[in-house]
């Protein structure tokens, strides 16, 4: 298991290397010079040259790339072209906010979907199944940003129960912090719930047809025990894979929800940095997102034997 873990860990290196090249080249192909954008319309050729020199943008692109790569290896991600703040600390600060929203919303979505999907499979083709599947389809059809806007209008503007802009950490002020997080978490959780629910339902239906389930029922075990103790073990692995993919993609891709709720998360920072042509920040964030994506999926793989002892790594 350990050798598998380290082998997978080593595989991250070529993956990240390819990502660094792709991100670096794409960012420089996009029109819009960060120095000219920073200067505005008072053109000062000396200052432009000086800024290019400071940022290393006056060197050939290949030199720029290897210079940046050599610093990344030493964990020096550089400074933002726009604000001058260290990229590493900016990324981790924002990553913390995104992680709170994403991890909690995925957990809520997973728990709800597992219960709902299992019950739907148990009651296949009955009223409960129809209701749960309809709910899942609705969840999948509504984009999270639309749901976010609807929540803001209902709970923020009309009822005025929850704040619509800003952020407070729940560890400082739990009540206030939760108030700021309720709507984004709910919007993301509902949007992601549908897919997980359908996955759980279909795999549970397959599992419930297996002989060991019939055997368990013949022994007189209660239906709930059959479902959540015996069937769930086998349905959980594909669900776990899906959860890993969702969590990985949301950690870098929750920008829309973060923008709607003005959360200072990583996705919003990425979007702002792309608009401002903050090469250094975009490159750093892409590495963080890729690494977290790979690591989360590695973690998910490592969890497989916990749920199915037949799986050997």
């Amino acid at each position: 298991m350990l050798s598998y873990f380290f082998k997978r860990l080593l595989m991250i290196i070529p993956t990240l290397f390819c990502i660094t090249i792709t991100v670096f080249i794409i960012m420089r192909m996009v029109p819009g010079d960060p120095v000219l954008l920073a200067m505005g319309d008072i053109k000062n050729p000396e200052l432009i040259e000086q800024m290019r020199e400071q940022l290393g943008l006056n060197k050939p692109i290949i030199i720029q790339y290897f210079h940046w790569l050599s610093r990344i290896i030493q964990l020096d991600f550089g400074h933002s072209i726009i604000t001058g703040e260290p990229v590493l600390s900016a990324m981790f600060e924002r990553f913390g906010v995104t992680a709170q929203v994403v991890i909690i919303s995925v957990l809520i979505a997973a728990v709800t979907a597992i219960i709902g999907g299992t019950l739907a499979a148990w009651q296949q083709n009955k009223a409960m199944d129809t209701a749960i599947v309809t709910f899942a389809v609705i969840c999948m059809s509504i984009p999270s940003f639309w749901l976010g806007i609807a929540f803001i209008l209902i709970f923020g503007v009309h009822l005025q129960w929850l704040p619509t802009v800003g952020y407070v950490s729940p560890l400082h002020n739990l009540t206030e912090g939760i108030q700021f997080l309720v709507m984004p978490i709910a919007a993301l959780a509902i949007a992601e719930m549908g897919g997980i629910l359908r996955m759980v339902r279909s795999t549970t239906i397959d599992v419930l047809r297996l002989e060991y389930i019939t055997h368990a029922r013949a022994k007189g075990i209660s239906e709930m025990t059959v479902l959540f103790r015996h069937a769930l073990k086998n349905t959980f692995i594909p669900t776990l894979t899906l959860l890993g993919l969702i969590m990985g993609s949301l950690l870098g891709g929750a920008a829309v929800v973060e923008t709607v709720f003005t959360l200072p998360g990583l996705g919003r920072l990425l979007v702002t940095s792309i608009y401002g042509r903050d090469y250094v920040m975009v490159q750093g964030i892409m590495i963080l997102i890729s690494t977290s994506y790979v690591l989360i999926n590695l973690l998910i793989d490592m969890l497989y034997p916990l749920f199915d002892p037949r799986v050997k790594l």
Partner: protein
Amino acid sequence: MRVYLPLAIAAICLATLWPYEKTQEAELKNNSPKDPLEIRVALSDDIRSSQPGVNRNSFADDVLAHVVESLVAHREDLSIAPMAASHYEVSDDLKVYRFTLRDGLKFHNGEDALAKHVKMNWETILDPISGFQCLPFYNGKMGAKVISVETEGDRVVIFKLDRPSSVFLEKLAYIQCPVAILHPDSWNQDGTWNAPIGTGPFKFSEWKKGRYVLLKKFLQYHPRSDSASGLAGRKIAYVDQVRFEVITDLMATKAALISGQIDIANSLAPITALEIRSNARVKAMDKQGLARRVILIQTDDPILSSLKVRQAIAHALDLKTFADVASLGNAAHNPSTLPIHSQYHTDLHSKNYKFNLEKSKRLLREADYQGEKIIIKTTRGEQAFFDSAMIAEAMLKKANINVEVQVMEMASLLGDYFEGNYQLMAFEYTPRFTAFMNYHTLIGDKSVTPSRWGDPLANQLLIEAATYSNPEKLQSIFDKIHTHMMDKVPIINLYNAPIVDVISNRLEGYEPWTGAKPRLWNVKIKEQNETLRR
């Protein structure tokens, strides 16, 4: 092992909270006073830095206008008034400017602001490594060069120029890079920037990047005695603090306004304010803005270098209808580069190109235009840009001009603008407060700034304008520039963008300004008044 799984998940959740929590400590301490009186203003993007005139954007200008003061500032009518200076004198030859600092001028750290500080600041910005964006204004590359800055005692500063300049005061007051009076401790020991220690009515307290900028009332501020006007005059901070909250989404801004979580969203487009205008919780305040919506023409382009093609484009556009439709009836067509408010905007500046499709077609024939494709670049990042491009496309096609709209993301559009990489571009110039500055954004050395109009006569006239202070003489020069521009068609001016400031009903004393800057001094919160009355 299974028992530990929920614990592991909980630990991950806590771990995600922890690093961020540590960074909150400073903020929490600052927020500890019980309910300070606070005005919250929406910023549609974060500031780039807190250093005036260096690595700036318009949001930084908005914030820093409350923190720092220049020797002079713009009045409500955009004329120049003393600000950090109590008064100033200009020599007859327009080469010597003498400023006397006002009494009681103090830095936010409590130290007196003296003439030596003005000189020190000046020397700092003149250093090429300072990154001061407006350096060409003062080193002779764009107008007169400052040859010396001298002090007389603690309160008098004298600037000497190498040639006459009537626009020196305008440059000092220029909102994009004011020559602010800053305490030396604004810089770190190694010369890097720390935070502004200025002389304004609010002091810079905290910048939480991507979230907010917090300014606190400067208790030792000694206001001027003359009445408040524009960015000048008597400024009193009535509230304890002002928070500029970064809200990049317009829908979120509107929701926050209605729900009372922010107090001011300034310079909104009329269409954006439309749906909240009637809400009883807020008040919409309209103002004619100074920003100029235009169709830029690249005169170096192989097709558009033909004067007749440019004239054909001008005559193919029904500009009155254009302005009416594009502004949703909120603005009239302004053919001039000068804003309608300008004292130099006379009847001559109201004369526009006559809409005449036949004339347009005739000019195209004379120019031997064979239907070559002309691209109008625009963006959806600003709806007004996109609307202008679409209207222009529809109108130009009626004159058989083969135009096509190319939609780009805002930064790409700006990049192409700075590099002069366009044929036609639907664009907006942000507000410029004076006649000279308005023409200055358009006319210049094309080899240095490819988006500018490099016409020798226009350049010559603009240089002349910078050497006269006589209004009649200046009027004559600006009239000549306008007439020449109408003849040569390097740009088609559409209209000055109307703006709407939407404010919470709990505010008193807030006034929108044509300069499109929020001004939070002299603004009170109604509950504050009621408490005082009790």
